[in-house]
Protein backbone atom coordinates (compact mmCIF):
# COMPACT_ATOMS: atom_id res chain seq x y z
CA UNK A 1 0.00 0.00 0.00
CA UNK A 2 1.26 3.48 -0.78
CA UNK A 3 0.16 6.65 0.86
CA UNK A 4 0.29 10.35 0.12
CA UNK A 5 -0.20 13.09 2.65
CA UNK A 6 -0.64 16.68 1.57
CA UNK A 7 -2.55 19.80 2.45
CA UNK A 8 -2.95 23.51 1.85
CA UNK A 9 -4.35 26.56 3.61
CA UNK A 10 -5.66 29.50 1.62
CA UNK A 11 -6.62 32.98 2.68
CA UNK A 12 -10.38 33.43 2.47
CA UNK A 13 -11.93 35.71 -0.12
CA UNK A 14 -13.40 37.96 2.55
CA UNK A 15 -10.03 38.08 4.33
CA UNK A 16 -8.36 39.11 1.09
CA UNK A 17 -10.86 41.97 0.77
CA UNK A 18 -10.29 43.08 4.35
CA UNK A 19 -6.53 42.50 4.32
CA UNK A 20 -6.72 39.94 7.12
CA UNK A 21 -4.14 37.15 7.18
CA UNK A 22 -5.13 33.49 6.92
CA UNK A 23 -5.55 32.25 10.46
CA UNK A 24 -5.66 28.53 9.62
CA UNK A 25 -2.72 26.19 10.20
CA UNK A 26 -2.08 22.54 9.47
CA UNK A 27 0.56 19.97 10.22
CA UNK A 28 1.29 16.47 9.00
CA UNK A 29 3.62 13.92 10.46
CA UNK A 30 4.43 10.58 8.90
CA UNK A 31 6.24 8.17 11.22
CA UNK A 32 8.81 5.69 10.00
CA UNK A 33 6.32 2.83 10.23
CA UNK A 34 3.77 4.67 8.10
CA UNK A 35 1.59 5.87 10.96
CA UNK A 36 0.21 9.30 10.19
CA UNK A 37 -0.65 12.22 12.47
CA UNK A 38 -2.65 15.09 10.98
CA UNK A 39 -3.87 18.31 12.46
CA UNK A 40 -5.79 21.40 11.32
CA UNK A 41 -6.57 24.48 13.38
CA UNK A 42 -8.72 27.49 12.53
CA UNK A 43 -7.86 30.67 14.44
CA UNK A 44 -10.82 32.88 15.32
CA UNK A 45 -10.86 36.02 13.27
CA UNK A 46 -12.64 38.25 15.75
CA UNK A 47 -11.02 41.43 17.00
CA UNK A 48 -10.60 39.98 20.47
CA UNK A 49 -8.30 37.27 19.05
CA UNK A 50 -5.50 39.27 17.37
CA UNK A 51 -2.93 36.45 17.67
CA UNK A 52 -5.14 33.58 16.58
CA UNK A 53 -2.76 32.71 13.74
CA UNK A 54 -0.11 31.92 16.33
CA UNK A 55 -2.76 30.16 18.38
CA UNK A 56 -3.60 27.87 15.47
CA UNK A 57 0.08 27.15 14.71
CA UNK A 58 0.70 26.21 18.29
CA UNK A 59 -2.43 24.07 18.34
CA UNK A 60 -1.39 21.88 15.41
CA UNK A 61 2.10 21.48 16.83
CA UNK A 62 0.69 20.54 20.22
CA UNK A 63 -1.62 17.90 18.79
CA UNK A 64 1.12 16.26 16.74
CA UNK A 65 3.57 16.40 19.61
CA UNK A 66 1.21 14.97 22.24
CA UNK A 67 0.00 12.17 19.97
CA UNK A 68 3.45 11.32 18.66
CA UNK A 69 4.83 11.04 22.18
CA UNK A 70 1.93 8.85 23.16
CA UNK A 71 2.33 6.68 20.08
CA UNK A 72 6.04 6.23 20.69
CA UNK A 73 5.38 5.44 24.32
CA UNK A 74 3.32 2.41 23.32
CA UNK A 75 6.17 1.19 21.10
CA UNK A 76 3.96 -0.38 18.47
CA UNK A 77 1.53 -2.04 20.86
CA UNK A 78 -1.50 -0.82 18.99
CA UNK A 79 -4.10 -2.76 20.94
CA UNK A 80 -2.97 -1.25 24.23
CA UNK A 81 -2.86 2.18 22.67
CA UNK A 82 -6.34 1.71 21.27
CA UNK A 83 -7.64 0.72 24.67
CA UNK A 84 -6.00 3.72 26.28
CA UNK A 85 -7.34 6.15 23.69
CA UNK A 86 -10.81 4.68 24.00
CA UNK A 87 -10.72 5.08 27.74
CA UNK A 88 -8.86 8.35 28.09
CA UNK A 89 -9.28 10.16 24.76
CA UNK A 90 -11.82 12.69 25.92
CA UNK A 91 -10.30 13.09 29.35
CA UNK A 92 -6.55 12.70 29.77
CA UNK A 93 -5.61 13.23 26.14
CA UNK A 94 -7.89 16.22 25.77
CA UNK A 95 -6.68 17.66 29.06
CA UNK A 96 -3.06 17.18 27.99
CA UNK A 97 -3.67 18.99 24.69
CA UNK A 98 -5.54 21.81 26.43
CA UNK A 99 -2.82 22.23 29.08
CA UNK A 100 0.08 22.06 26.64
CA UNK A 101 -1.53 24.61 24.30
CA UNK A 102 -2.08 27.03 27.18
CA UNK A 103 1.47 26.51 28.40
CA UNK A 104 2.95 27.24 24.97
CA UNK A 105 0.63 30.22 24.47
CA UNK A 106 1.91 31.78 27.66
CA UNK A 107 5.52 31.14 26.63
CA UNK A 108 4.86 32.73 23.26
CA UNK A 109 3.07 35.68 24.84
CA UNK A 110 5.91 36.35 27.25
CA UNK A 111 8.54 35.87 24.57
CA UNK A 112 6.91 38.62 22.55
CA UNK A 113 6.68 40.79 25.67
CA UNK A 114 2.98 41.25 25.20
CA UNK A 115 0.91 42.80 27.94
CA UNK A 116 -0.77 40.66 30.59
CA UNK A 117 -3.59 42.33 32.47
CA UNK A 118 -4.14 41.70 36.17
CA UNK A 119 -7.10 40.39 38.05
CA UNK A 120 -8.51 42.27 41.04
CA UNK A 121 -6.47 40.07 43.37
CA UNK A 122 -3.28 41.06 41.54
CA UNK A 123 -2.76 37.74 39.78
CA UNK A 124 -2.14 37.58 36.06
CA UNK A 125 -5.32 37.29 34.02
CA UNK A 126 -4.31 34.20 32.08
CA UNK A 127 -7.68 33.71 30.43
CA UNK A 128 -7.45 37.13 28.81
CA UNK A 129 -4.14 36.04 27.28
CA UNK A 130 -5.45 32.72 25.95
CA UNK A 131 -8.45 34.48 24.44
CA UNK A 132 -6.17 36.53 22.17
CA UNK A 133 -4.91 33.30 20.58
CA UNK A 134 -8.30 31.56 20.25
CA UNK A 135 -8.48 28.65 17.84
CA UNK A 136 -10.25 25.42 17.06
CA UNK A 137 -8.38 22.12 16.65
CA UNK A 138 -8.90 18.97 14.60
CA UNK A 139 -6.57 16.01 14.85
CA UNK A 140 -6.30 12.50 13.49
CA UNK A 141 -3.99 9.58 14.19
CA UNK A 142 -4.08 6.90 11.48
CA UNK A 143 -2.50 3.59 12.42
CA UNK A 144 -2.56 0.27 10.61
CA UNK A 145 -5.56 -0.96 12.57
CA UNK A 146 -7.46 2.02 13.93
CA UNK A 147 -7.85 5.77 13.80
CA UNK A 148 -8.15 8.21 16.69
CA UNK A 149 -9.89 11.51 16.00
CA UNK A 150 -9.99 14.66 18.09
CA UNK A 151 -12.15 17.69 17.55
CA UNK A 152 -12.57 20.89 19.50
CA UNK A 153 -14.68 23.44 17.65
CA UNK A 154 -15.90 23.37 14.09
CA UNK A 155 -14.45 21.66 11.02
CA UNK A 156 -14.80 18.18 9.56
CA UNK A 157 -12.91 14.90 9.61
CA UNK A 158 -14.07 12.56 6.84
CA UNK A 159 -13.21 9.10 5.60
CA UNK A 160 -13.95 8.50 1.93
CA UNK A 161 -13.60 5.14 0.22
CA UNK A 162 -15.07 3.28 -2.69
CA UNK A 163 -18.27 2.53 -0.83
CA UNK A 164 -18.97 6.11 0.14
CA UNK A 165 -18.23 8.60 2.87
CA UNK A 166 -18.23 8.45 6.65
CA UNK A 167 -17.72 11.21 9.17
CA UNK A 168 -14.99 9.95 11.48
CA UNK A 169 -16.61 11.81 14.37
CA UNK A 170 -19.81 13.82 14.50
CA UNK A 171 -19.06 17.18 16.05
CA UNK A 172 -21.55 19.37 17.85
CA UNK A 173 -22.81 21.86 15.27
CA UNK A 174 -23.22 25.39 16.53
CA UNK A 175 -25.32 27.73 14.42
CA UNK A 176 -23.96 31.03 13.21
CA UNK A 177 -20.39 32.14 13.73
CA UNK A 178 -19.53 30.81 17.17
CA UNK A 179 -17.37 27.81 17.86
CA UNK A 180 -15.79 25.99 20.76
CA UNK A 181 -12.26 27.18 21.40
CA UNK A 182 -9.03 26.06 23.00
CA UNK A 183 -8.88 29.50 24.59
CA UNK A 184 -11.76 28.79 26.94
CA UNK A 185 -11.36 27.69 30.52
CA UNK A 186 -11.51 23.89 30.71
CA UNK A 187 -11.62 23.80 26.93
CA UNK A 188 -10.97 20.05 27.01
CA UNK A 189 -14.51 19.50 28.23
CA UNK A 190 -15.80 20.52 24.80
CA UNK A 191 -13.45 18.19 22.92
CA UNK A 192 -14.96 15.22 21.14
CA UNK A 193 -12.81 12.19 20.48
CA UNK A 194 -13.41 8.90 18.77
CA UNK A 195 -11.55 5.68 18.16
CA UNK A 196 -12.58 3.49 15.24
CA UNK A 197 -11.19 0.25 14.01
CA UNK A 198 -10.44 0.99 10.38
CA UNK A 199 -8.03 -0.96 8.30
CA UNK A 200 -7.63 1.21 5.25
CA UNK A 201 -6.14 -1.68 3.31
CA UNK A 202 -9.56 -3.31 3.34
CA UNK A 203 -11.15 -0.70 1.10
CA UNK A 204 -8.50 0.86 -1.12
CA UNK A 205 -8.35 3.42 -2.53
CA UNK A 206 -9.38 5.52 0.44
CA UNK A 207 -8.84 8.99 1.81
CA UNK A 208 -9.06 10.81 5.13
CA UNK A 209 -9.62 14.54 5.02
CA UNK A 210 -9.48 17.22 7.67
CA UNK A 211 -10.98 20.54 6.66
CA UNK A 212 -11.65 23.82 8.38
CA UNK A 213 -15.28 24.96 8.48
CA UNK A 214 -14.76 27.38 5.60
CA UNK A 215 -14.78 24.37 3.28
CA UNK A 216 -18.11 22.82 4.29
CA UNK A 217 -19.70 26.25 4.73
CA UNK A 218 -18.96 27.03 1.11
CA UNK A 219 -21.26 24.33 -0.17
CA UNK A 220 -24.96 24.73 -0.67
CA UNK A 221 -25.76 21.82 1.61
CA UNK A 222 -24.17 19.08 3.64
CA UNK A 223 -24.89 16.65 0.81
CA UNK A 224 -22.96 18.84 -1.62
CA UNK A 225 -20.06 18.92 0.82
CA UNK A 226 -20.06 15.13 1.14
CA UNK A 227 -20.25 14.76 -2.63
CA UNK A 228 -17.23 17.00 -2.89
CA UNK A 229 -15.11 14.91 -0.54
CA UNK A 230 -15.89 11.82 -2.60
CA UNK A 231 -15.06 13.77 -5.77
CA UNK A 232 -11.67 14.67 -4.34
CA UNK A 233 -10.98 10.98 -3.80
CA UNK A 234 -12.04 10.21 -7.37
CA UNK A 235 -9.84 13.04 -8.61
CA UNK A 236 -6.78 11.58 -6.87
CA UNK A 237 -7.60 8.13 -8.19
CA UNK A 238 -7.81 9.51 -11.69
CA UNK A 239 -5.05 12.13 -11.80
CA UNK A 240 -2.73 11.23 -8.94
CA UNK A 241 -2.02 12.87 -5.61
CA UNK A 242 0.58 15.24 -6.99
CA UNK A 243 -1.80 16.71 -9.54
CA UNK A 244 -4.45 17.26 -6.87
CA UNK A 245 -1.90 18.74 -4.48
CA UNK A 246 -0.71 21.14 -7.18
CA UNK A 247 -4.24 22.25 -7.97
CA UNK A 248 -5.43 22.38 -4.39
CA UNK A 249 -4.58 26.06 -3.67
CA UNK A 250 -6.53 27.31 -6.67
CA UNK A 251 -9.45 24.99 -5.96
CA UNK A 252 -9.64 26.09 -2.34
CA UNK A 253 -9.36 29.77 -3.30
CA UNK A 254 -12.15 29.34 -5.82
CA UNK A 255 -14.22 27.50 -3.23
CA UNK A 256 -13.83 30.34 -0.76
CA UNK A 257 -14.49 32.98 -3.38
CA UNK A 258 -17.69 31.38 -4.64
CA UNK A 259 -18.67 30.14 -1.19
CA UNK A 260 -18.56 31.56 2.31
CA UNK A 261 -15.40 33.68 1.94
CA UNK A 262 -13.64 32.17 4.94
CA UNK A 263 -10.07 30.82 5.10
CA UNK A 264 -9.98 27.19 4.03
CA UNK A 265 -7.60 24.39 4.94
CA UNK A 266 -7.74 20.90 3.51
CA UNK A 267 -5.39 18.16 4.68
CA UNK A 268 -5.57 14.78 2.98
CA UNK A 269 -4.13 11.34 3.63
CA UNK A 270 -4.63 9.13 0.60
CA UNK A 271 -4.10 5.38 0.42
CA UNK A 272 -3.97 3.17 -2.65
CA UNK A 273 -2.86 -0.26 -3.61
CA UNK A 274 0.69 -0.65 -4.88
CA UNK A 275 -0.81 -2.38 -7.88
CA UNK A 276 -2.21 0.94 -9.10
CA UNK A 277 0.62 2.99 -10.61
CA UNK A 278 0.97 6.46 -9.19
CA UNK A 279 0.67 9.23 -11.75
CA UNK A 280 3.40 11.28 -10.15
CA UNK A 281 5.30 10.00 -7.10
CA UNK A 282 5.21 12.15 -4.02
CA UNK A 283 6.85 11.59 -0.70
CA UNK A 284 5.04 12.72 2.39
CA UNK A 285 7.09 14.36 5.04
CA UNK A 286 6.69 16.25 8.24
CA UNK A 287 5.78 19.89 7.89
CA UNK A 288 7.35 22.12 10.46
CA UNK A 289 5.16 24.88 11.78
CA UNK A 290 7.19 27.56 13.51
CA UNK A 291 5.16 28.83 16.43
CA UNK A 292 6.71 32.19 16.99
CA UNK A 293 6.78 33.49 13.49
Amino acid at each position, binding site marked *: MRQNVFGRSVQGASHIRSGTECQDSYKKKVCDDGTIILSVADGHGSKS*CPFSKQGSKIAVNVFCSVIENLYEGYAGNLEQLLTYLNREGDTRISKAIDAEWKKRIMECHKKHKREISSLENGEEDLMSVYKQYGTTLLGLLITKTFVFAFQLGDGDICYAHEDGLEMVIEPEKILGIETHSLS*RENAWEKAITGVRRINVEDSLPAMFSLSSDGFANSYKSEDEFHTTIIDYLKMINEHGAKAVEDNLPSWLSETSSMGCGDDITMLIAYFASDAIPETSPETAEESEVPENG
Partner: protein
Amino acid sequence: MANLKRPGGELASRPLHFIWVVDCSGSMYGEKIGTVNHAIQSTIPEMADAAKDNPNAQLLVRTLKFSTGASWVTTAPVPIEDFAWDDLDAGGVTDLGKAFEMLAAQLTIPPMTDRALPPVLVLLSDGQPTDDYKKSLDKLLHLPWGKKAVRIAISIGQDADDDVLEQFTGNRELVLQANNPQALVKMIKWASTAASMVSAPASRPKDAEEFAVPKDPSASNAPLVLDMNNIPDPTSIGAGDVW
Protein backbone atom coordinates in the same frame (compact mmCIF):
# COMPACT_ATOMS: atom_id res chain seq x y z
CA MET B 1 1.40 21.27 -13.74
CA ALA B 2 -1.84 20.26 -15.36
CA ASN B 3 -4.67 22.64 -14.48
CA LEU B 4 -7.58 20.50 -13.44
CA LYS B 5 -11.14 21.66 -12.99
CA ARG B 6 -12.21 21.97 -9.39
CA PRO B 7 -14.12 18.85 -8.32
CA GLY B 8 -17.15 18.91 -6.12
CA GLY B 9 -20.69 20.00 -5.50
CA GLU B 10 -22.52 23.27 -5.82
CA LEU B 11 -20.99 26.24 -4.04
CA ALA B 12 -23.08 28.97 -2.48
CA SER B 13 -22.64 32.11 -0.42
CA ARG B 14 -24.20 32.00 3.03
CA PRO B 15 -27.77 33.27 3.24
CA LEU B 16 -28.43 36.22 5.52
CA HIS B 17 -32.12 36.79 6.24
CA PHE B 18 -33.12 40.35 7.08
CA ILE B 19 -36.71 40.79 8.20
CA TRP B 20 -38.57 44.05 8.79
CA VAL B 21 -41.41 43.43 11.26
CA VAL B 22 -43.68 46.44 11.07
CA ASP B 23 -46.52 47.48 13.37
CA CYS B 24 -49.36 48.58 11.08
CA SER B 25 -51.97 49.12 13.79
CA GLY B 26 -54.30 52.12 13.72
CA SER B 27 -52.05 54.21 15.94
CA MET B 28 -49.36 54.11 13.23
CA TYR B 29 -51.76 55.82 10.80
CA GLY B 30 -50.55 58.98 9.12
CA GLU B 31 -47.10 60.42 9.67
CA LYS B 32 -45.66 57.36 11.46
CA ILE B 33 -46.39 54.79 8.78
CA GLY B 34 -45.55 57.35 6.12
CA THR B 35 -42.14 57.91 7.68
CA VAL B 36 -41.56 54.16 7.99
CA ASN B 37 -42.44 53.66 4.32
CA HIS B 38 -40.20 56.47 3.18
CA ALA B 39 -37.27 55.60 5.46
CA ILE B 40 -37.16 51.88 4.71
CA GLN B 41 -37.49 52.53 0.99
CA SER B 42 -34.55 54.90 1.15
CA THR B 43 -32.35 52.31 2.86
CA ILE B 44 -32.75 49.71 0.12
CA PRO B 45 -30.15 51.12 -2.31
CA GLU B 46 -27.65 51.49 0.56
CA MET B 47 -28.27 47.93 1.69
CA ALA B 48 -27.87 46.69 -1.88
CA ASP B 49 -24.59 48.60 -2.27
CA ALA B 50 -23.26 47.22 0.99
CA ALA B 51 -24.27 43.70 -0.04
CA LYS B 52 -22.33 44.04 -3.29
CA ASP B 53 -19.18 44.53 -1.24
CA ASN B 54 -19.57 41.09 0.25
CA PRO B 55 -20.40 38.48 -2.37
CA ASN B 56 -19.91 35.72 0.19
CA ALA B 57 -23.21 36.50 1.87
CA GLN B 58 -26.56 36.53 0.11
CA LEU B 59 -28.77 39.18 1.69
CA LEU B 60 -32.41 38.11 1.57
CA VAL B 61 -35.03 40.62 2.68
CA ARG B 62 -38.69 40.35 3.52
CA THR B 63 -41.35 42.20 5.44
CA LEU B 64 -43.82 40.96 8.03
CA LYS B 65 -46.64 43.35 8.90
CA PHE B 66 -48.96 43.03 11.85
CA SER B 67 -52.09 44.79 13.00
CA THR B 68 -55.28 42.72 13.29
CA GLY B 69 -53.44 39.49 12.54
CA ALA B 70 -50.11 39.36 10.74
CA SER B 71 -49.01 38.54 7.22
CA TRP B 72 -45.92 38.39 5.03
CA VAL B 73 -45.79 41.18 2.49
CA THR B 74 -43.63 38.95 0.31
CA THR B 75 -44.22 35.24 0.56
CA ALA B 76 -40.58 34.30 0.07
CA PRO B 77 -37.26 35.93 0.97
CA VAL B 78 -36.16 38.31 -1.80
CA PRO B 79 -32.51 39.00 -2.74
CA ILE B 80 -31.77 42.62 -1.84
CA GLU B 81 -31.03 43.49 -5.46
CA ASP B 82 -34.58 42.47 -6.37
CA PHE B 83 -36.28 43.81 -3.27
CA ALA B 84 -38.84 46.59 -3.67
CA TRP B 85 -40.67 48.15 -0.76
CA ASP B 86 -44.47 48.04 -0.90
CA ASP B 87 -45.92 50.93 1.05
CA LEU B 88 -47.79 49.74 4.11
CA ASP B 89 -51.11 51.06 5.38
CA ALA B 90 -52.14 51.29 9.02
CA GLY B 91 -55.36 50.21 10.72
CA GLY B 92 -56.50 47.66 13.29
CA VAL B 93 -55.08 46.38 16.58
CA THR B 94 -51.57 45.25 17.58
CA ASP B 95 -51.35 41.47 17.26
CA LEU B 96 -47.64 41.25 18.03
CA GLY B 97 -48.01 37.68 19.26
CA LYS B 98 -49.22 36.62 15.85
CA ALA B 99 -46.18 38.27 14.29
CA PHE B 100 -43.85 36.39 16.64
CA GLU B 101 -45.65 33.16 15.78
CA MET B 102 -45.11 33.74 12.06
CA LEU B 103 -41.48 34.68 12.60
CA ALA B 104 -40.92 31.50 14.58
CA ALA B 105 -42.36 29.41 11.75
CA GLN B 106 -39.81 30.91 9.35
CA LEU B 107 -36.83 30.61 11.70
CA THR B 108 -37.31 26.89 12.16
CA ILE B 109 -34.92 24.49 10.36
CA PRO B 110 -36.21 24.00 7.66
CA PRO B 111 -37.08 26.40 6.02
CA MET B 112 -33.92 27.97 7.50
CA THR B 113 -30.68 26.13 6.84
CA ASP B 114 -28.03 25.52 9.46
CA ARG B 115 -25.34 27.15 7.31
CA ALA B 116 -27.02 30.56 7.28
CA LEU B 117 -25.58 33.62 8.94
CA PRO B 118 -27.47 34.87 11.99
CA PRO B 119 -30.73 36.43 10.76
CA VAL B 120 -31.48 40.08 11.48
CA LEU B 121 -34.93 40.93 12.82
CA VAL B 122 -35.93 44.59 13.05
CA LEU B 123 -39.20 45.19 14.89
CA LEU B 124 -40.90 48.59 14.65
CA SER B 125 -43.80 49.29 17.00
CA ASP B 126 -45.56 52.22 18.61
CA GLY B 127 -47.93 50.51 21.00
CA GLN B 128 -48.92 47.77 23.39
CA PRO B 129 -49.58 44.26 22.13
CA THR B 130 -53.30 43.47 22.06
CA ASP B 131 -52.90 39.71 21.94
CA ASP B 132 -51.03 37.21 24.11
CA TYR B 133 -47.52 37.70 22.76
CA LYS B 134 -45.58 35.95 25.54
CA LYS B 135 -46.07 32.36 24.46
CA SER B 136 -45.09 32.98 20.85
CA LEU B 137 -42.16 35.21 21.85
CA ASP B 138 -40.95 32.48 24.17
CA LYS B 139 -41.18 29.96 21.36
CA LEU B 140 -39.30 32.29 19.03
CA LEU B 141 -36.52 32.94 21.51
CA HIS B 142 -36.02 29.26 22.20
CA LEU B 143 -35.54 28.33 18.56
CA PRO B 144 -31.87 27.87 17.68
CA TRP B 145 -32.06 30.63 15.07
CA GLY B 146 -34.35 32.71 17.27
CA LYS B 147 -31.65 32.74 19.94
CA LYS B 148 -28.90 33.52 17.46
CA ALA B 149 -30.80 36.21 15.58
CA VAL B 150 -29.67 39.81 15.76
CA ARG B 151 -32.80 41.37 17.22
CA ILE B 152 -33.31 45.12 17.07
CA ALA B 153 -36.46 47.05 18.04
CA ILE B 154 -37.42 50.59 17.15
CA SER B 155 -39.74 52.10 19.72
CA ILE B 156 -41.89 54.68 17.94
CA GLY B 157 -43.37 57.45 20.08
CA GLN B 158 -43.95 57.62 23.78
CA ASP B 159 -46.77 55.07 23.92
CA ALA B 160 -44.61 52.17 22.77
CA ASP B 161 -44.14 49.41 25.33
CA ASP B 162 -40.35 49.35 25.74
CA ASP B 163 -40.50 46.47 28.19
CA VAL B 164 -42.09 44.24 25.56
CA LEU B 165 -39.56 45.38 22.99
CA GLU B 166 -36.73 44.66 25.39
CA GLN B 167 -38.07 41.16 25.93
CA PHE B 168 -37.75 40.75 22.18
CA THR B 169 -34.22 42.17 21.84
CA GLY B 170 -32.87 40.79 25.12
CA ASN B 171 -30.89 43.98 25.40
CA ARG B 172 -32.17 47.44 26.38
CA GLU B 173 -29.54 49.13 24.23
CA LEU B 174 -31.09 47.57 21.16
CA VAL B 175 -34.48 49.20 21.81
CA LEU B 176 -33.89 52.31 19.75
CA GLN B 177 -35.95 55.36 20.63
CA ALA B 178 -37.69 57.22 17.82
CA ASN B 179 -39.92 59.92 19.17
CA ASN B 180 -40.12 62.00 16.04
CA PRO B 181 -39.84 61.51 12.28
CA GLN B 182 -36.18 62.49 12.10
CA ALA B 183 -35.22 60.02 14.81
CA LEU B 184 -37.27 57.27 13.17
CA VAL B 185 -35.45 57.77 9.89
CA LYS B 186 -32.06 57.66 11.61
CA MET B 187 -32.90 54.54 13.63
CA ILE B 188 -34.20 52.71 10.56
CA LYS B 189 -31.02 53.59 8.69
CA TRP B 190 -28.88 52.40 11.59
CA ALA B 191 -30.81 49.13 11.86
CA SER B 192 -30.41 48.53 8.15
CA THR B 193 -26.62 48.60 8.53
CA ALA B 194 -26.84 45.53 10.76
CA ALA B 195 -26.99 43.47 7.58
CA SER B 196 -23.53 44.49 6.46
CA MET B 197 -22.10 43.95 9.95
CA VAL B 198 -23.52 40.45 10.18
CA SER B 199 -22.59 39.57 6.60
CA ALA B 200 -18.83 39.57 7.15
CA PRO B 201 -18.42 38.09 10.58
CA ALA B 202 -15.29 36.60 12.04
CA SER B 203 -15.60 33.39 13.99
CA ARG B 204 -15.34 33.76 17.71
CA PRO B 205 -15.23 31.53 20.77
CA LYS B 206 -18.60 30.43 22.03
CA ASP B 207 -19.71 32.22 25.18
CA ALA B 208 -16.58 34.30 25.22
CA GLU B 209 -16.46 36.56 28.22
CA GLU B 210 -17.00 39.83 26.45
CA PHE B 211 -20.06 38.52 24.69
CA ALA B 212 -21.66 36.94 27.70
CA VAL B 213 -24.09 39.75 28.26
CA PRO B 214 -27.50 38.10 28.39
CA LYS B 215 -29.07 37.52 31.76
CA ASP B 216 -31.95 35.73 30.15
CA PRO B 217 -30.98 32.32 28.72
CA SER B 218 -33.08 33.01 25.65
CA ALA B 219 -31.29 36.26 25.00
CA SER B 220 -28.69 36.09 22.30
CA ASN B 221 -25.18 37.45 22.15
CA ALA B 222 -25.52 37.74 18.40
CA PRO B 223 -26.49 41.43 18.58
CA LEU B 224 -23.00 42.12 19.76
CA VAL B 225 -21.66 41.69 16.26
CA LEU B 226 -23.09 45.20 15.98
CA ASP B 227 -21.16 48.32 16.80
CA MET B 228 -23.51 49.82 19.32
CA ASN B 229 -21.25 52.77 19.92
CA ASN B 230 -22.65 54.48 16.86
CA ILE B 231 -26.36 54.14 17.62
CA PRO B 232 -27.79 57.62 17.01
CA ASP B 233 -28.49 59.55 20.21
CA PRO B 234 -32.28 60.04 20.24
CA THR B 235 -32.09 63.06 22.55
CA SER B 236 -30.13 64.99 19.98
CA ILE B 237 -32.56 64.42 17.12
CA GLY B 238 -35.45 66.87 16.64
CA ALA B 239 -36.17 67.14 20.33
CA GLY B 240 -38.80 69.81 19.81
CA ASP B 241 -41.01 67.57 17.70
CA VAL B 242 -42.29 64.65 19.77
CA TRP B 243 -44.85 61.95 18.96
